[in-house]
């Protein structure tokens, strides 16, 4: 199968959907003439023209709100945040407007919009540029939150997100845009809300999503050398969450570790852990352990970063702990 980059998978998804439906448009900072700050939308201005691939000033609140209004009035906007760190100045329009509109209007107005961009750390950028918002948005009823971990998932899930009739937060990573993976030429969509078992195993379940999947899979590789077969579940979306997939796996392995980049308090890992104690209590042979970023902002120096982010070593330690090794 052909191999393409994560950014190309995103571009294909957007371009295919824009060819299919003229109401889909892309708007954001540097998306058109600069071809995207991270080159995701390279060439799209040439193909679709400035009416559909639209550069904005640095005015996230304004253009996020524009997107919501346009979606209420028949269009299907893709709003790009250069990174989700900058979505914070627009969060009112996401949480108060997009997420609540359908309920608030008694079902009159749905908001078919995709807010997309990078989440989480991208190396040494300091605290303002390194936050994770997956759990923030997942905490908001009315939104769907998609966090794909590889090019194949990225394409299928972005196409599904654009066709979805509810607002979707679609989260990428600067550190994944160059990742390569197999993506078929033929069209496909992936359903929102369905997890994917990225590696089969029977000894322990490792649950993760987004770029932390790399940590989870690398840890599983290491464990295999010691004869431990880890099952690695990629949640792919964190709202809704495919709880059943996690419970099914844990019924088999009886042990679970959750790896997540966000800070720990009120995180997706807390949520998974709650569901496991509620729905798989009798199957658990050890308490669930999570590996999150430490409970602090991410600072600049590499030593702080090593001490803060989840990594393979911490994941292996957690697995050993749940296996009483």
């Amino acid at each position, binding site marked *: 199968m052909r191999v393409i980059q994560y950014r190309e998978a995103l571009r294909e998804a957007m371009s295919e959907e824009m060819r299919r439906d003229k109401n889909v448009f892309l708007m954001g900072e540097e998306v058109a003439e600069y071809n995207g700050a991270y080159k995701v939308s390279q060439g799209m201005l040439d193909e679709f023209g400035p009416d559909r691939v639209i550069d904005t000033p640095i005015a996230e609140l304004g253009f996020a709100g524009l997107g919501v209004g346009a979606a209420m009035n028949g269009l299907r906007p893709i709003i790009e945040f250069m990174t989700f760190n900058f979505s914070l*100045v627009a969060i009112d329009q996401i949480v108060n407007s997009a997420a609540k509109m359908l309920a608030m209007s008694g079902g009159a107005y749905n908001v078919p919009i995709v807010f997309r961009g990078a989440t989480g750390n991208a190396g040494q950028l300091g605290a303002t540029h390194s936050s994770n918002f997956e759990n923030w948005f997942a905490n908001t009823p009315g939104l769907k939150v998609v966090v794909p971990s590889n090019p194949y998932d990225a394409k299928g899930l972005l196409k599904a997100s654009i066709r979805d009739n509810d607002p979707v937060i679609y989260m990428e990573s600067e550190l994944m845009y160059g990742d390569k993976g197999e993506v078929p030429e033929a069209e496909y969509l992936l359903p929102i809300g369905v997890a994917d078992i990225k590696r089969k195993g029977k000894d322990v379940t490792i649950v993760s999503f987004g770029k932390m999947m790399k940590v989870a899979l690398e840890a599983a590789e290491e464990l295999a050398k010691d004869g431990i077969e880890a099952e690695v579940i990629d949640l792919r979306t964190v709202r809704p969450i495919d709880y059943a997939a996690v419970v099914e796996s844990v019924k088999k392995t009886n042990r679970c570790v959750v790896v997540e980049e966000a800070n720990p308090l009120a995180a997706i890992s807390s949520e998974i852990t709650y569901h496991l104690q509620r729905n798989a209590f009798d199957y658990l042979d050890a308490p669930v352990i999570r590996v999150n970023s430490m409970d602090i902002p991410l600072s600049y*120096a590499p030593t702080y970063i090593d001490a803060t982010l989840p990594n393979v070593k911490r994941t292996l330690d957690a697995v050993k702990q749940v296996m009483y090794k």
Partner: protein
Amino acid sequence: MAKKSTATKAKAKYSKETYAYWYESMLLMRRFEEKAGQLYGQQKIRGFCHLYIGQEACASGAITALTKDDKWITAYRDHAHPLGLGTDPGAVMAELFGKVTGTTKGKGGSMHIFDKERNFMGGHGIVGAQVPMGLGIGFAEKYQGTKNLCICHMGDGAVRQGAVHEALNLAMLYKTPVIFVIENNGYAMGTSVARTSNVTELYTIGEAYDMPSFPVDGMSVEAVHEAVAEAAERARKGDGPTLLEFRTYRYKGHSMSDPQKYRTREEVEEYKGRDPIEQVKKTIMDNKILTEDEITAIDKKVKKQVEDAVKFAEESPWPDGQDAFKDVYKQEDYPFVME
């Protein structure tokens, strides 16, 4: 009639010390950042690194117009302001390296330089965020009955943030002692000012709030000084804020990885022809304010300062990773979630 050209003799209006300071501080900013650019290429400096090269007058000229008790805040293009205010270049360089001897112990990196001793209240990474904060800093000065003010720099791109407009309105409403400075270097990343609004005379946005607002030649350190001095007088008299648009230019890319396809070589060269350091040097020479020897001595001093700064940064230790837990709260025994 004599044609106005660069051959015209530039008149000196300020003291020898002031000219010497302008030349030396701007040269330090320039050489420091040229070195930082090289070190970025060698991956000694990581992350984003936004250079101020070409814009030095916007910091240097403002510094001489204010007092040491006035407060400073700016965006992420923030190496030059503290250098001009007297922050140890070694500490700034160490911060760019991420060393424990840096201005924030390696916490902030290039975009988040702070120096409390010199009232430099940060480098801020979110476009426009420093503008309402600058308003608040000025508000606190007035509230406490001081005669101090806050000078708040922002880029031309920041002007399109909603928060900036709210802050301008509030500043005028409360007659807050703030000098808002737009460093209009023509571009926000790859987007020219003209592509962000119909309003391209940026200083006029202040007029919407009845704020005294002026365009200033940001390549001339003297013009910057004059405009800031006037605005400061207004603020100290209790007349509130001023908006100044410094028309300037960044010679380098937005950050370190910018192919710069959005502008022409000629445009860059044109601005280099009006270089702020060359301009002030010419005034100094034309008027014999400093001798050749004095200028050479400054050049040497700056060269050594930069070398020493790099050496200091190189030799400084990395921070202890566990210190990432320090300074998250003032409360010393804050119970972090540890598992």
